[in-house]
């Protein structure tokens, strides 16, 4: 005749689960109640979002120019702009003269 192994009571099983959770440091939620834990588990996106655009450099071209006055730092884009404006003026396409007052 086979001996029947008695199944532990549900109370004892819960106690076991609780002890197991304490040992392995997991959350004890035997009835699977929605505690909103999944919202807290998510990673924060703030720091990554802020660092998308690079921070403005505190050192600018004019600071370098001022710091080393003995060296020449040509401002190539600005010189190009000035050259183009001079060409336009030669063609007669420069900015018009400012009028003194309203002519009614």
């Amino acid at each position, binding site marked *: 005749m086979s001996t029947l192994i008695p199944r532990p009571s549900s109370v004892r099983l819960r106690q076991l689960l609780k002890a197991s959770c304490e040992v392995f440091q997991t959350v004890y939620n035997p009835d699977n*109640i929605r505690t*909103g834990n999944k919202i807290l588990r998510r990673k*924060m996106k*703030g720091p990554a*979002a*802020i660092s998308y655009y*690079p*921070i403005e450099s505190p050192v600018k071209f004019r600071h370098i120019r001022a710091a080393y006055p003995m060296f020449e730092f040509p401002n190539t884009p600005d010189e190009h702009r000035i050259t183009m404006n001079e060409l336009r003026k030669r063609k007669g396409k420069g900015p018009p003269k400012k009028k003194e007052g309203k002519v009614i």
Partner: protein
Amino acid sequence: MATKIPTPGCFINTMIVRDNFKRHMAAEAEAERRALKHIVYNMTVPVRARIQAQLKLAVMPNYTRMNQTKSRCVVSGKGRAVLSEFKMSRHQFRMAAQNGELPGVKRATW
């Protein structure tokens, strides 16, 4: 505003300024939003508190929402066709890649 939002060091555009502002505001409010959402989803909290939390969440300004941030091209300010790995729109990416400015990027052939 208490803290000044730092100016971006890349190409500056109205849309980039707006997006930068949203990113900073969303990051500031992220903890509060996260807490409110947790209250809403928590069934052990009384119903009244959950409803109040939901209303508070709905009333928060749009610039505190992380969804509203948009990845923009850092060189041209374009909002469409932006590759997240390079933070550039497709044309700027193409120009930079052909100039050799992007390490390890070459024309795909296989």
